């Protein structure tokens, strides 16, 4: 039996279709995922992301512990700011990709993928013990619901439900504030390629918060949005999804995430030796964008072939792009085939579909 979020009955009332995702029963769509996708790009969408994992790291040594545990330098994150990061194993493989928020001097919130919460919480705890550090790692996922309001109308919608904090909040920042009368942690982050917010709150207030945001957003075109459109939105934005573009066997440099790693931090960190080696070695393969022109899309697991028909890579994610109107995919391809403009092909169940290597992301919002 999969777990249900605090908003499950709200989704049922809205007529959602559900899918099992990382042990959770999550809304995959309410009406049409294509319509929900367009709403997020043009007006706004409201998501339930309560399956995500929230792990607090607190105490005098919290920053030092995180500097050792993840590849970035959380101790240097400004108060109320956020960073995209990764937690790696000793071999330099990616255990998860994360957003680390610094709530106060000695108070961090680490947000992990639903499928990896236990792995991340365990690794953070072990790395705290290894350091003999004065810090506590606490998995708060069960006590935390997460809503996201994403799209160009998100700011206007939430501004009407909160105080000056809402509009003053900068991109990749977080603040304790009230939204619709409820205490929340409001973050200007997301996974859609649009401006917007993620709203962390108690599960007990999540249904009322959802209803108030829905009601306030209706006249701006806000619609409930499911995980199906979240996947095509993040794909267009070139954002990796753990289990597709990233896993414990992924070299972060091949995934294009070398910029996330801080080699200049004062102390050692888990995976640093392997990651330095990865940095200095030539890449065997790299993550690229592919564009095709038919109606059938490349899908995860399909082979990428060169003009001579040799297999040179594999698709990790693919779908018809609702915004662009043609199929797009991300794929790992061998060195020498990764330059934008390279003509490759994808084996679509026996049919060879021409595919062009293109720059990532596929889509950037106009103001960005």
């Amino acid at each position, binding site marked *: 039996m999969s777990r249900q979020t605090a908003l499950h009955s709200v989704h049922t009332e809205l007529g959602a279709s559900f899918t099992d995702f990382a042990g959770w029963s999550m809304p995959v769509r309410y009406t049409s995922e294509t319509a929900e996708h367009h709403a997020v790009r043009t007006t706004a969408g409201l998501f339930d992301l309560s399956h995500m994992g929230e792990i607090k790291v607190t105490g005098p040594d919290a920053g030092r512990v995180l500097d050792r545990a993840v590849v970035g330098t959380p101790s240097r994150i400004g108060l109320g700011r956020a960073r995209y990061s990764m937690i790696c194993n000793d071999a330099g493989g990616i255990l998860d990709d994360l957003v680390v928020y610094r709530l106060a001097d000695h108070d961090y919130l680490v947000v992990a993928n639903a499928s990896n919460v236990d792995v991340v919480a365990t690794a953070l705890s072990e790395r705290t013990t290894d350091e003999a550090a004065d810090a506590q790692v606490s998995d708060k996922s069960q006590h935390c619901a997460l809503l996201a309001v994403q799209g160009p109308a998100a700011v206007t919608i939430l501004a009407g439900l909160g105080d000056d904090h809402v509009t003053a909040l900068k991109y990749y920042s977080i603040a304790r504030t009230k939204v619709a009368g409820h205490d929340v942690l409001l973050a200007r982050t997301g996974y859609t390629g649009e401006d917007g917010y993620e709203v962390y709150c108690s599960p007990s207030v999540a249904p009322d918060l959802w209803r108030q945001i829905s009601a306030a957003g209706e006249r701006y075109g806000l619609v409930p949005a499911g995980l199906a459109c979240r996947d095509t939105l993040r794909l267009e934005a070139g954002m990796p999804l753990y289990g597709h573009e990233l896993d414990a066997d992924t070299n972060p440099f091949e995934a294009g995430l070398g910029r996330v790693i801080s080699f200049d931090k004062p102390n050692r960190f888990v995976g640093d030796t392997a990651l330095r080696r990865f940095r200095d070695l030539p890449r065997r393969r790299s993550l690229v964008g592919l564009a095709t022109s038919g*109606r059938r899309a490349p899908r995860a697991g399909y082979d990428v072939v060169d003009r001579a028909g040799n297999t040179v890579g594999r698709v990790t994610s693919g779908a018809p792009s609702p915004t662009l109107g043609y199929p797009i995919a991300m794929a790992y391809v061998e060195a020498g085939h990764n330059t934008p403009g390279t003509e490759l092909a994808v084996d679509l169940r026996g049919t060879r579909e021409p595919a062009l290597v293109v720059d990532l992301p596929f889509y950037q919002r106009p103001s960005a």
Partner: protein
Amino acid sequence: MSIPSDLRYTDQHEWVDLNGDIATIGITQYAADSLGDIVFVGLPPIGSSLASGQPCGELESTKSVSDLMAPLDGDVVEINDAVVDDPSLLNSDAMDAWLVRLKFTAIPVLLDASTYAALVAAG
């Protein structure tokens, strides 16, 4: 959900309308809703012979690719080009958007509407 009682069904969520020796085949609204927005329909060529339980085409949605399974043995006599041109017809009314017409010889074993409704209800 519409599960007309005058049609037959399969556990692969297909409907079959038997009329003389011609069977008209489509997917149920449940199948269309489960697939999500359908963007591509691949159908067998006219004149091809289908074998019950074997893949005979494919349905591709924004999320996934599914095989269309032949619900009975027979020869393809007609395909619905309108659905090939506009796969979203399946999402708007799957019971109206037929896919393939087959000429069959043996009366196939299929589910009646109440059995199919129970199967859908059981999830």
